[in-house]
């Protein structure tokens, strides 16, 4: 009995056939290997002709060289212009005249795309359309329609992503495990390889060849993202070396913490090596503002540079009154000097992605910066007052700083905490100041700020 059942089932179902829709062959065709060119004998003939062609070519080369170059140059320029035209953003009011395809797409709304014949028409339009903004807006609509019918969270996440990119023209690129966000640059649409895989069945009921069409589109180049940055933080002045008029003495043994106006510094050095300046390792503050440029160089790494104007204010050091008593040479802190600096900072950072999911991106920062000190002023505090006198100025010195830290990016907003360590000091009479500190920076894309 059992064998009969299997036998009967097989005989019914073996020949069971269904007619596929026309769209299936239309989607298979583009994926097929291209027709081979003739081989073997053609190559032999070509090889035989090569010396002849070369000889003729060399003879002609000297006379036509200049002409060839200019032609090639014109061709290159033409191609570049053509590409630019293809990817020109479409102004919605000019849709009809610039790109009729946008109008054609607009009729495929809501229920119309549910029929197979409409889907195959749509697919051929998208194949011909030059992969423009209309396509991404259409995709966006598709997701939105699916969302209306109560589909799960993942569809809404894709919807939000598409919406964000379509409306804000973000040029971020992030790769998720399940689906890719689009990289949007000059209206170029980027495919999502497994676009429909994680999406609700209602959206998957759209002809899958539609997804295959989108998969054929090329990946865009990763480009620079410009951001406005502001930051603030604390600066610490490390005063490591102190000069006298004639000798250089390094202070490494401080017996008691020095305080202004009452502290002492016992050094045990002879009066000939008079120490004039006392370090005050007090914190100051700094603020920065400027432009940052960020570029992804691979899935995990980004590079960042920019230009930041920095204002730094620190209490730097104090002069000392020297006193000799019982063969012990002591100094008393007297006048406080305050340091203010205006700097142009050019940072260079390498960012390593540690976590990247659901629009949250956490990364490690390593780098360095060049600081061009536009001016560095020392102000002398008048004793027992809060008034300062300009003591000295210097400018146009270069400082180098090491940077390390961590950053978080959520949607378009970037926040970083960076530790800076000065590698080169600022020289001032009597002191070498090394500036270090901690910096908290916030960055926002330039385009989103301009748009607002």
């Amino acid at each position, binding site marked *: *009995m*059992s064998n*009969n*059942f*299997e036998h*009967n*089932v*097989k005989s*019914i*179902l*073996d*020949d*069971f*056939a*269904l*007619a*596929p*829709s026309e*769209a*299936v*062959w239309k*989607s*298979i*065709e583009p*994926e*097929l*290997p*291209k*027709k*081979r060119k003739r081989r073997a004998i053609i190559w032999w003939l070509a090889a035989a002709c090569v010396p002849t062609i070369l000889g003729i070519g060399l003879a002609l080369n000297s006379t036509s060289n200049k002409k060839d170059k200019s032609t090639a140059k014109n061709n290159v320029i033409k191609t570049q212009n053509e590409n630019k035209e293809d990817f020109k953003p479409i102004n919605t009011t000019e849709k009809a005249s610039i790109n009729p395809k946008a109008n054609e797409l607009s009729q495929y709304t809501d229920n119309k795309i549910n029929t197979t014949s409409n889907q195959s028409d749509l697919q051929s339009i998208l194949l011909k359309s030059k992969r423009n903004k209309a396509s991404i807006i259409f995709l966006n609509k598709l997701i939105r329609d699916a969302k209306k019918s109560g589909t799960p969270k993942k569809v809404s996440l894709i919807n939000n992503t598409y919406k964000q990119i379509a409306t804000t023209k973000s040029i971020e690129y992030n790769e998720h495990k399940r689906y890719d966000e689009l990289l949007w640059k000059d209206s170029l649409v980027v495919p999502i390889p497994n676009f429909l*895989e*994680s999406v609700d*069945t209602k959206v*998957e*009921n759209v*002809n*899958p*060849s539609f997804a*295959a069409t989108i998969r054929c589109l090329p990946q865009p180049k990763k480009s620079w993202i410009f951001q406005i940055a502001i930051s603030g933080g604390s600066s610490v002045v490390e005063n490591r070396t102190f000069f006298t008029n004639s000798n250089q003495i390094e202070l490494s043994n401080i017996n008691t913490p020095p305080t202004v106006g009452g502290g002492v510094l016992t050094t045990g050095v002879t009066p000939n090596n008079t120490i004039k300046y006392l370090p005050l390792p007090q914190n100051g503050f700094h603020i920065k503002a400027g432009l940052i440029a960020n570029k992804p160089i691979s899935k995990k790494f980004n590079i960042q540079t920019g230009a930041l104007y920095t204002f730094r204010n620190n209490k730097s050091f104090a002069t000392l009154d020297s006193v000799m008593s019982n063969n012990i040479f002591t100094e008393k802190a007297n006048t406080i000097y305050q340091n203010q600096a205006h700097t142009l900072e050019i940072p260079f950072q390498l960012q390593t992605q540690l976590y990247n999911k659901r629009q949250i991106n956490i990364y490690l920062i390593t780098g360095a910066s060049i600081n061009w000190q536009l001016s560095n002023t020392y102000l002398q505090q008048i004793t027992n007052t809060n008034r300062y006198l300009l003591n000295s100025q210097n400018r146009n010195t270069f400082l180098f700083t090491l940077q390390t830290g961590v950053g978080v990016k959520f949607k378009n907003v970037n926040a970083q905490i960076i530790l800076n360590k000065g590698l080169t000091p600022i020289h001032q009479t009597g002191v070498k100041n090394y500036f270090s500190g901690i910096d908290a920076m916030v960055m926002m894309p330039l385009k989103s700020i301009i748009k607002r």
Partner: protein
Amino acid sequence: MNSTHQLVKDCIKNSRQAQEALYKQYASVMLGLCYRYTISIEDAEDVLQEGFIKVFHNIEKYRNEGDLGAWIRKIMVNTALTYLNKHNKYKKEMQLDEIQMHPLTDENIEVKLETKELIETIRQLPAGYQTIFNLVAVEGFSHVEIADLMKINVNTVRSQYKRARGIIIKKLTNNEIIHLYNEQ
């Protein structure tokens, strides 16, 4: 040189005409096969599309030994299995041990009543049971081969096939499609 051989030869040369002819010759039967493994005609067409792309990319490997249709069928079955394991809506059901029949979409395919009943009953099974039943009863794979193909235990194949078979027979009996298992 018979026509199938010539057709294959032209397909190897990537003649578009030959490829289209081959597709037209086998597409309907293969779509029927894909339909048995999926829950919607759209999914079936998706599998069909991927399967034929593989066929044309690997046509050189067909050595004119055995039936071309059988060779294409093998590719199509493998494509269907890959598809089921790749897509989330089937993935869970592939590992399901309990039988929970799922409703089908209202697809008005034009076939004989008993064929329709049989196919719909098979397609209502969870994806894992459906696949095993198709592979045993229709494709003729052995339990050991299926266990190897689906990376599951051979006892699982046996028990799931037995249960699927039982449910199908019961449903067909209730619908009075009983001659399928009568001795002839």
